């Protein structure tokens, strides 16, 4: 199913932005209301529910013992998977992940991985044989725009909320102590900041209708120190170099504010 956006809506939203306005009265650098809760799913090792405006994602983490990749025998594995389930929007179809869903998973994964938010070496139990595999599953239940920022925020919060059983090696055998749960070795934080280009301007945290009329999009993943850990340009139209450089500068300020929503890591 293809959703076609009425021409007059495109015009009206473009004109609003040209005049410095947005349909929901936000400024160009203003996020919608953000609600973040953690520990919402008891059966998950870590979990978070994030809402940016009406967009809503449930994130759960699971740990499993597995074998490391042969090229990195001494580090654990972090896997991110997302599902745009048909509950979330009328045009999301059941079935295997489509390209939108795969892009979301991979962008979220790169942001976490390249920022080195987890000390993956500490998740190695027996080098070359046994490591912890951490699965981050994103369940998109209500889609009202800007999934990327919500996905990264939810994943970061869920990882910070995650506790896995302690694993020991006794006589070359791995012994798991389910009673003793330890937090993941979090060593860095990273979040993502997405801008949509509408009416020649870049506006942060596009709503659904803004996403539907945007000409392009730029998402910037950033660590606490303001360094860039990942980027993704999307949409059918190009961006200028100048636009991208300015977006990076703006995302420094915005990411800092977004970080305040994360629960403090008190362990």
């Amino acid at each position, binding site marked *: 199913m293809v959703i*076609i956006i009425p021409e*007059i809506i495109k015009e009206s939203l473009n004109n609003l932005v040209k005049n410095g306005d947005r349909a929901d009265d936000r400024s160009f650098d203003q996020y919608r209301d953000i609600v973040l809760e953690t520990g919402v799913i008891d059966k998950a090792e870590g979990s978070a529910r994030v809402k940016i405006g009406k967009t809503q994602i449930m994130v759960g983490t699971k740990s499993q013992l597995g074998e490391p990749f042969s090229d990195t025998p001494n580090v654990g594995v972090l896997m991110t998977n997302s599902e745009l389930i048909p509950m979330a929007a009328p045009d999301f179809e059941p079935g295997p992940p489509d390209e939108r869903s795969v892009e979301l998973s991979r962008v979220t994964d790169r942001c976490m991985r390249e920022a080195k938010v987890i000390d993956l070496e500490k998740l190695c139990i027996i080098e070359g044989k046994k490591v912890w595999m951490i699965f981050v599953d994103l369940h998109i239940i209500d889609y009202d725009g800007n999934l990327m920022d919500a996905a990264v925020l939810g994943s970061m919060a869920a990882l910070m909320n995650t506790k896995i059983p302690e694993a020991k090696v006794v006589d070359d055998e791995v012994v798991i102590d389910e009673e003793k749960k330890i937090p993941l070795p979090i060593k860095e934080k990273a979040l993502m900041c997405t801008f949509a280009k509408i009416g020649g301007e870049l506006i942060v945290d596009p709503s659904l209708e803004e996403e539907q009329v945007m000409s392009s999009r730029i998402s910037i993943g950033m660590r606490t120190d303001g360094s860039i850990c990942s980027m993704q340009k999307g949409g059918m139209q190009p961006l200028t170099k100048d636009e991208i450089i300015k977006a990076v500068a703006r995302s420094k300020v915005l990411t800092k504010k977004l970080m305040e929503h994360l629960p403090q890591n008190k362990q």
Partner: protein
Amino acid sequence: MIFIEDKQMVIPGDVLADKEYQSGRGTFKEDDKICSSLVGLVAVRDKKISVIPIQSKYIPKRGDVVIGEITDIRFSMWNLNINSPYSGILPASDVFGKEKRDLSKAFVVGDVLFLRVVDVDEVKKVKLGLKGRGLGKFRDGILIYITPTKVPRLIGKKGSMINMIKDETKCEVVVGQNGVVWVKGDPSMERVAEKVINMIEEQAHTSGLTDRVRNMLYKLLGKENPEEALESEKPEKALEPENPEKEKEPFDEEDEEENGEDLIQ
């Protein structure tokens, strides 16, 4: 015997009355009992019980006026989304007569039109037409989507609600019976109208709505409310207009014509 009160909120399966009453819209008969099939407010008129739904989809009916959006151009017709489980078609002949012309010269995908439902056949093919005053393509403005059963509430008694919005925001407003509303005016005024219409959508089932709409309008426009100090008016009936027959004609005909005037192609 009747088991509920007028204007009471009911849900599917609720038993409303026994056989001395008639089963109206939103209800069904089962073993001499009249039950609700919907979530909505009960309307008792003489011996007829109906339920006015809070949520509903638009089911096209011949003669309705609707706002639709072109989704596809075919060999001799346009396909339109009319905010309904059934999409509509606009035959090329309705626009060009017998002349053969390129359809995309007239309307393209994404255009928004004000149309009349000409026919709905047995296989739910919905034929639309543009013949009639005020029908045609919209230029500029915004669209707002409301539940079709709330259209009468948005119009108000004799157009009181919609006229108040038009007068205060100086916007043109056209309401389709399919729950699509077109608003055109100053961009900031369009947003004021949008907020107010969304509020009506949310609170259509409550009483005293006209007062709250007026207060909201005045607040958004930064105006003094001359009636604020006065005692508030009597609460009006929710959703259902005075005369149940009138409900099928939620439009103030004059309004509709007047709004559409500059839309004629």
